[in-house]
């Protein structure tokens, strides 16, 4: 029988929202306080949902040790206590939480084989949350 399992993780990072395609005035108008050149930070909460048949031998969709190990190694250690703008994936993409959701979804989709990835959710603050469930085509 198929079940969905969701695990929540936390990480803290800084970022600045600024697009090279926009003028300084347009950047300020678009991103407001988030355009501050010195950056600012958030405590992010990440939700990872995987699905699959419940293994009758273990009662599990996947072993949490495997999921936690992967997320810790490939996601949290990459983003926790870092400035997102300094990372390769945000050289050409603005590190909005939309784009961060897509990046983390793709990291999991590429590397985590123990269960089917359903979705990634990120709470940037208690007031803002984002979800990404993938597309048929990988992003260019």
């Amino acid at each position, binding site marked *: 029988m198929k079940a969905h*399992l969701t695990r929540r993780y936390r990480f803290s990072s800084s970022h600045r929202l600024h697009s090279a395609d926009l003028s300084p005035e347009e950047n300020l108008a678009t991103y407001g306080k988030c355009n501050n050149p010195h950056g600012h930070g958030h405590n992010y909460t990440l939700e990872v949902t995987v699905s699959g048949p419940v293994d009758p031998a273990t*009662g599990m969709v996947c*072993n949490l040790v495997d999921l936690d190990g992967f997320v810790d190694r490939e996601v949290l250690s990459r983003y926790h206590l870092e400035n997102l703008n300094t990372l390769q994936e945000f050289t050409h993409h603005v590190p909005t939480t939309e784009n961060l959701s897509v990046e983390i979804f793709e990291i999991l989709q590429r590397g985590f084989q123990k269960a089917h990835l359903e979705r990634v959710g990120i709470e940037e603050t208690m007031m803002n949350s984002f979800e990404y469930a993938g597309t048929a085509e990988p992003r260019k």
Partner: protein
Amino acid sequence: MVYLTRKAEFSASHYYHNPAFTPEENRRIFGKCNNPNGHGHNYTLEVTVKGEVDPQSGFVVDLKQLKEIMHREVLDAMDHRFLNKEVPEFFTQIPTTENLAIAIWQRLESKLQQARLHRVRVYETPDLFVDFFGEE
């Protein structure tokens, strides 16, 4: 179609062990959860039902009935219990959150009268939950 969710909390203990595995396999696969003395959680249960709004009552479901069914079928059986030893489903199945969500679905599904069961969500901790939507 309108969806309604009712929450409840219960506290129970459990441990993970498969008698078909060797003691070493049990320890390797289940880690600290294999301790036969058990350990406990404060579970949060969310039961979501769906249906059309009854034009007479304005309800998808009579909440009092739903609450009574959840109490009778789930909380009375599981709250302050050792799941492996006191809940029949877990005499043979491992009481993981996955199996708990499935067992709660099976206990509730046939008892609902007005609305249909849509989802059972069981939080083992605030950072881990399982959703079951029935057999597909």
